[in-house]
């Protein structure tokens, strides 16, 4: 049934029809008609952020912790350009977002009008798709298509740019059930041939490994369940990318920890020496593979991905399977069970023995101190004191992010939200706000760095307005730690502009926003301080003063292979300074 209404009303009607309960936004001239409709309804709750960039990251945190589509609403011009980082972040990490931008009226487009920018032009390369709505008659269809495209196949962000006159214009609204997309129909069910071949190869493996990524999380909770079942059934070891943490429980004995540049020794060595690799929803990113021509040289590779362009992009695989992770694992399990293959038990036993030897290197070990808080220790204590709670962790970007990935362990998917692909400093606080909004009773912690947190600190005000008790746990070493570490590795320890000489007093800063501020600078006080943070009702900034010059290890230096890791325990400053070759220095 078509209903007659204005464009602005259609936006709200579509949000309601798609089950949207919360949107994140910031008003401005070109979206006022939509804000007026927001004011006159109660189905959709609007969260007012303090800068549009915060709205996008909050929508990401909301989406990643719930599996729903995140929605942001911003105005034209600067509103749209501020959204660009969050859109790019969501594109890189495959997070479903619908971002509605206001635009100047159609008759002014192209005239350099006030707060005009070419939003669809600017956001074309950083969205999965975008639309400029030129007529109110197209609006309902585009709104429904937007939700479909954001979620279908490999998820991603979309932008709907709506000129102000289209928001005022009257047209017919049709509900989402009448919309079928004519071109975008991604394949979700895999070809059976490929799955069968994969099972046969897995059955003959002597040194197998599962290498899993964010695709498992994006596929939904069922994918994680199926993955667990398959991994246990096969007895194979499993590692995961930064994006995939939580899909497989970190407390399980088959878990090797994260792989890649700051992954564990055992995960990277197992990848390097395996004979059969099963990549599940992972895209062989350069942070994972290290030097490509030395990446897992002796293995035959199976890759499951919903996006055909992710297959064979960086690493050639032997058995490509295009399909959704859950559908594919379901088929794989069924075929595996019906075949009930005889595995080479002796080989598997030897493989695990080898893995245990690598594990025995204890690559995450570090030298603890009784006088200063080591950043690794801080995360360990945070984990120990929060692991039995219903908690969600977000991070900013840098050393603290890697330490969080190494020392905070996840047993469930959708509990870990970090900017993986784009590496956006300033992601964690707004993402925590989005996650907290979706899970008001849970403990949501942003593990932050002293530099990153300042990039979106204004959102502290948003948390207060909506009673969101997020905790910000800052590993404060006064440096941009990862930048400093790389300067030590690559640039003769000349610490060019990586020291923040005038950091704010984070306790006072917290108090200025109406938060509770806490500080801790001694290991002996840490547990009590963390408990006090957890027990504080409202939002807390916890300024954890840690050792200033700690480096994040283990590490695969740029341009090196998985079996050329730098381990933390016995690395001298000289080793660190010489770790990267001339060729490696040009790499990121």
């Amino acid at each position, binding site marked *: 049934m078509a209903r007659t209404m204005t464009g602005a009303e259609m936006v709200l009607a579509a949000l309601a029809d798609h089950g949207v309960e919360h949107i994140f936004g910031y008003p401005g001239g070109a979206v006022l008609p939509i804000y007026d409709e927001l004011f006159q309804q109660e189905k959709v709750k609007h969260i007012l952020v303090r800068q549009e960039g915060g709205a996008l990251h909050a929508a990401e945190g909301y989406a990643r912790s719930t599996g729903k589509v995140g929605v942001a609403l911003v105005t034209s011009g600067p509103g749209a350009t501020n959204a660009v980082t969050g859109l790019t972040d969501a594109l890189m990490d495959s997070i479903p977002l619908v971002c509605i931008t206001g635009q100047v009226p159609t008759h002014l487009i192209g005239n350099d009008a006030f707060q005009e920018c070419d939003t669809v032009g600017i956001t*074309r390369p950083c969205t*999965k798709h975008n639309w400029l709505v030129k007529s109110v008659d197209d609006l309902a269809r585009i709104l429904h298509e937007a939700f479909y495209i954001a979620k279908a196949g490999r998820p991603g962000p979309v932008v709907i740019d709506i000129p102000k006159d289209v928001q005022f214009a009257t047209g017919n609204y049709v509900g989402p059930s009448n919309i079928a997309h004519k071109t975008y129909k991604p394949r979700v069910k895999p070809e059976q041939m490929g799955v069968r071949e994969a099972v046969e190869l897995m059955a003959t493996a002597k040194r197998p490994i599962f290498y899993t990524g964010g695709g498992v999380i994006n596929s939904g909770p069922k994918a994680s369940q199926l993955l667990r079942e398959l991994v246990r059934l096969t007895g194979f070891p499993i590692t995961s990318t930064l994006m995939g943490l939580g899909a497989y429980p970190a407390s399980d004995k088959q878990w090797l920890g994260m792989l890649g540049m700051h992954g564990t020794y055992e995960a990277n060595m197992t990848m390097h020496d395996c004979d059969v690799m099963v990549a599940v929803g992972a895209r062989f990113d350069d942070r994972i*593979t*290290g030097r490509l021509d030395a990446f897992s040289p002796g293995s035959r590779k199976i890759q499951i991905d919903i996006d*055909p362009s992710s297959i064979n992009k*960086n690493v050639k695989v032997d058995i490509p399977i295009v399909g959704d992770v859950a559908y594919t694992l379901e088929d794989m399990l069924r075929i595996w069970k019906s075949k009930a293959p005889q595995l080479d038990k002796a080989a598997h036993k030897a493989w695990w023995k080898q893995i245990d030897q690598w594990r025995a290197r204890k690559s995450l070990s570090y030298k603890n101190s009784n006088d200063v808080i080591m950043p690794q220790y801080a995360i360990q204590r945070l984990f120990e004191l929060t692991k039995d709670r219903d908690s969600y962790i977000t991070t900013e970007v840098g050393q603290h992010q890697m330490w969080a990935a190494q020392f905070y362990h996840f047993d469930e998917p959708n509990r870990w939200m970090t900017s993986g692909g784009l590496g956006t400093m300033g992601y964690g606080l707004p993402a925590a706000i989005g996650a907290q909004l979706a899970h008001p009773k849970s403990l949501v912690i942003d593990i932050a760095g002293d530099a990153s947190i300042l990039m979106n600190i204004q959102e502290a005000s948003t948390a207060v307005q909506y009673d969101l008790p997020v905790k910000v746990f800052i590993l404060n070493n006064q440096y941009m730690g990862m930048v400093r570490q790389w300067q030590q590795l690559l640039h003769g320890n000349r610490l060019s502009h990586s020291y923040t000489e005038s950091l704010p007093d984070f306790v006072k800063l917290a108090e200025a926003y109406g938060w509770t501020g806490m500080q801790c600078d001694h290991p002996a006080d840490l547990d009590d301080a963390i408990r006090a943070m957890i027990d504080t009702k409202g939002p807390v900034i916890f300024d954890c003063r840690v050792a200033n010059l700690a480096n994040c290890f283990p590490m695969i230096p740029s341009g090196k292979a998985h079996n050329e890791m730098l381990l933390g325990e016995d690395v001298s400053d000289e080793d660190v300074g010489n770790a990267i070759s001339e060729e490696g220095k040009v790499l990121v």
Partner: protein
Amino acid sequence: MTNMSKLPSKSHYVGPGAAQAVVSRTLSIIVDNEPGVLARVIGLFSGRGYNIDSLTVTETEHEKHLSRITIVTLGTPDVIVQIKHQLERLVPVHRVRDLTAEGVALERELALVKVVGKGDKRIEALRIAEIFRAKVVDTSTEHFVFEITGKPSKLEEFIQIMTELGLVEVSRTGIAAIGRGPASS
């Protein structure tokens, strides 16, 4: 067009496919003729460092609002496959065909070639034009504009010769291509 002399590298990290030979491929891309669709396609090429040697686009099925974009691109076989998959990911793209991979495609191009001169050179230009079956579409006592159609290699040859006979300006359409045989894309 984006005609980068440097080969597109897939990653900063040296890959095993780096030693592959570069091939030329003609891609036929059927898209919804909606605003911005061409920008999406060529933005993908420039953004990911792929080459465009030739590009033509126009609406070919008016009732369905479908356009055909024909792109001649250079790359290693791995890069060509990647280009195809990346194009197929774009929402308004219906299908992508690698015409070169499916057999020798029919490729035609039209050029308008302006030649200025007097005396022997002028007569020679006209004579050569006849050999190439180029039509005179505009003339004065000092110039000809020739219209020539054919394979790109034929056009190249014609232009090469005309360079010696007073060629002053060339306009080319870029390549239109279609697969041979009864099957349609």
